[in-house]
């Protein structure tokens, strides 16, 4: 994408906006009781992870993606809420709409984060003023607190947002990026995760200031290609453009078991139930898929995925046999399984094209009747008998990896 350069200045103006502890904020909107209390959102079982936690809980050392069991040890008085992905999506959509209306170009990088390109706008409004107004508007219209950072590029803006949280804002003036970053620890740089930070610490690099002094070649020798990117980011350089928001191109669900299992019958019935549910979602949203992926994670965390392309479809009777077949092929080790998942990708808008020879009138009517029932009485109103024992709860996205 061509970057817009403003005639007045020779640098960009990029805002990063992040909803503060998004899931927690949504829960608090629903229930006042949660306000001011340590709150954990995520799978309730011991094997779940924390998807989001309130600032009160963070004070105890809890952070997202931490195993729920550990979080509860750290903060026993925390309230655990399962979370309602559908509602979060709704709120996320509301915020997206507000952003969409207010700015020329934005990227939705996750459910609660946006990058906005305001290059050229300073001439008319002043970027900081516009962003502050946007923040206030989101707060007013949705009730959700949001923080933002404004700078020349995505990396610095994101760091600035994180530094300003909660409910804050921060502008890093052009030319001062390096100085802003230097006192921070290396793990504040987006993309420097636990492992990279650990390696850097072992190299004697604690602060970004030190990292800025490390020669690029040395980082490249340790981290390969990423070394150069890390070096650039540490110096406040990031040329990646804003990729305008587009609708997601896949839907998926996965399930981590309470206990690892080898019961193929049970696994299959779960797959069928998952596929049925996803296929219904496709039809409901008038979408078709052209690629099915099945994911298996064994108890030793060895993960296998297998996918297959096919003509566009949203019909159970095409997808279920395909998922079963893929599972049979992917399940090659006689070993306990920890997680299974199904993903439909290559989505397009459209409805199922009825086949002259393979579909019957009864079949099509059955789909329409089932979908009507589900539309009115919920996903589980009518299901295949094989998937009946599988509870709806199994597909809670928080039981697996963090959202």
């Amino acid at each position, binding site marked *: 994408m061509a970057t817009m350069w403003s005639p007045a200045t020779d640098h960009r103006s990029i805002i990063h906006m992040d909803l503060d502890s998004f899931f927690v904020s949504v829960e608090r909107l629903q229930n006042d009781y949660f306000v001011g209390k340590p709150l954990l959102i995520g799978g309730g079982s011991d094997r779940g992870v924390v998807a989001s936690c309130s600032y009160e809980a963070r004070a105890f050392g809890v952070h997202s993606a931490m195993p729920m069991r550990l979080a509860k040890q750290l903060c026993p008085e925390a309230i655990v809420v399962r979370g309602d992905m559908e509602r979060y999506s709704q709120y996320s959509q509301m915020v997206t709409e507000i952003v969409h209306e207010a700015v020329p170009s934005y990227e939705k990088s996750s459910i609660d984060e946006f990058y906005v390109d305001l290059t050229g706008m300073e001439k008319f409004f002043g970027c900081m003023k516009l962003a502050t107004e946007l923040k206030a508007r989101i707060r007013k219209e949705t009730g959700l607190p949001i923080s933002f950072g404004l700078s020349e590029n995505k990396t610095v803006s994101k760091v600035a947002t994180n530094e300003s949280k909660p409910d804050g804002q921060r502008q890093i003036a052009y030319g001062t990026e390096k100085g802003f970053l230097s006192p921070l620890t290396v793990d504040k740089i987006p993309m420097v995760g636990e492992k990279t930070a650990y390696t850097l610490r072992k190299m004697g690099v604690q602060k970004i200031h030190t990292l800025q002094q490390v020669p690029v070649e040395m980082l490249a020798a340790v981290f390969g290609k990423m070394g150069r990117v890390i070096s650039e980011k540490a110096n406040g350089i990031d040329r990646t453009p804003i990729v305008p928001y587009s609708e997601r191109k896949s839907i998926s669900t996965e399930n981590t078991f309470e206990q690892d299992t080898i019961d193929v019958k049970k696994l299959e019935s779960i797959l069928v139930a998952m596929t049925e549910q996803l296929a219904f979602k496709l039809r409901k949203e008038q979408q078709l898929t052209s690629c099915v992926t099945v994911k298996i994670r064994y108890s030793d965390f060895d993960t296998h995925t297998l996918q297959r392309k096919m003509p566009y479809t949203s019909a159970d009777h095409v997808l279920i046999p395909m998922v079963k077949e893929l599972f049979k092929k992917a399940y090659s080790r006689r070993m306990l399984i920890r997680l299974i998942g199904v993903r439909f990708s290559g989505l397009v808008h*459209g409805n199922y*094209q*009825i086949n*002259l020879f*393979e579909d019957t009138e009864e079949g099509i009517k059955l789909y*329409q009747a089932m979908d009507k029932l589900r539309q009115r009485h919920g996903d589980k109103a009518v299901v295949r008998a094989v998937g009946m024992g599988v509870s709806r709860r199994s597909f809670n996205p928080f039981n697996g990896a963090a959202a």
Partner: protein
Amino acid sequence: MKFIVSSSYLLKQLSAIKGVITTNPVVPILENFLFEITDGTLKVTASDLQTSMITEIEVEAKENGSIAVPAKILLETLSNLPEQPVTISVDEDTYSIEISSDNGRYKLSGENATDFPKVPEVTNGFSVNISSDVLSTAINNTFFATSNDELRPAMTGVYIKLDETNTTFVATDGHRLVRYRRVDVAADVTNSMIIPRKALNLLKTTLPVANTNVSVEFNVSNAYFKFDHVKMICRLIDERFPDYDNVIPAENNNIMTIDRLEFLSSMKRIAIYANKTTHQVRIKITGSELMISAEDLDFSNEANERLSCEHDGEDIEIGFNAQFLIQMLSNLESKKISFKLQAANKAGLLVPVDKDENEDLLMLVMPVMLNNYV
């Protein structure tokens, strides 16, 4: 071996059969034309193992012989030469070929003719005569509805059913179906075959503009088409064609009649605004008004048009792939067409209102499953 032939005449004959040659054949020798001279007649064969085409050319030659000639070089040479007699001489020991013209000499190396795969003969076959006009109309009407799905080989060709009273051509890909029937073509015995799409495509481009007789011979595995100086032999698809007769609905009583071109051009305009992958459009007939609409949610594009039509039946709303309808409507020739419907999830039938008394054309299209319950 040596012969003299007019450059443009040779080019014309070779061009008629060159379509068989694939760019990357299974056996490299299939990149060649097979030249065989017997008593002053040059027989040229091109093949891809499934389909072979043969043409015969009168040439000036004293001796018999054969050679495989690289097709691409020969065609390019001939197409860049001005019209003149050219002499082609072949050294049958070294397989070297020399083309001499007024402009100069061109040398290329051929291959041993005996390495060229043998073209099968049709023995104890049935035969039927069809005029080239009828055959090309039949191909044009059905060809587009064949499937590319290699997993369902039966549908990748056109089914031809010969009967004592008529001949039926059928093509389908599971989403649409075309049935074209002629009562002026009949055979002595009932028989049927599936001809692969590539062979039909070749036939379509090679069939002469002027009406001639095409003789078709076939047995269980091969079909032979003969016309003018050209012969085409193709391997038949050895599969059972789906039971098409039972899926054509008989009681589609909700009938809309409309000017074909008006419907077609409206459909083409609306299709621009439909999703680029699924091409879905919505057709709504209320009273004598036809409304066509489409939307592409990804780009917030949408369009709708209203047309007036003759309509006999209840109001109906039904979704289709616009590409299917456009192809069908452009292949029909009648001024007016009837669109016979029954229900939103059942097949629709497109039929011409006025037609030749010898022919019967029916185009069937399956709808998409619209969900109106949201």
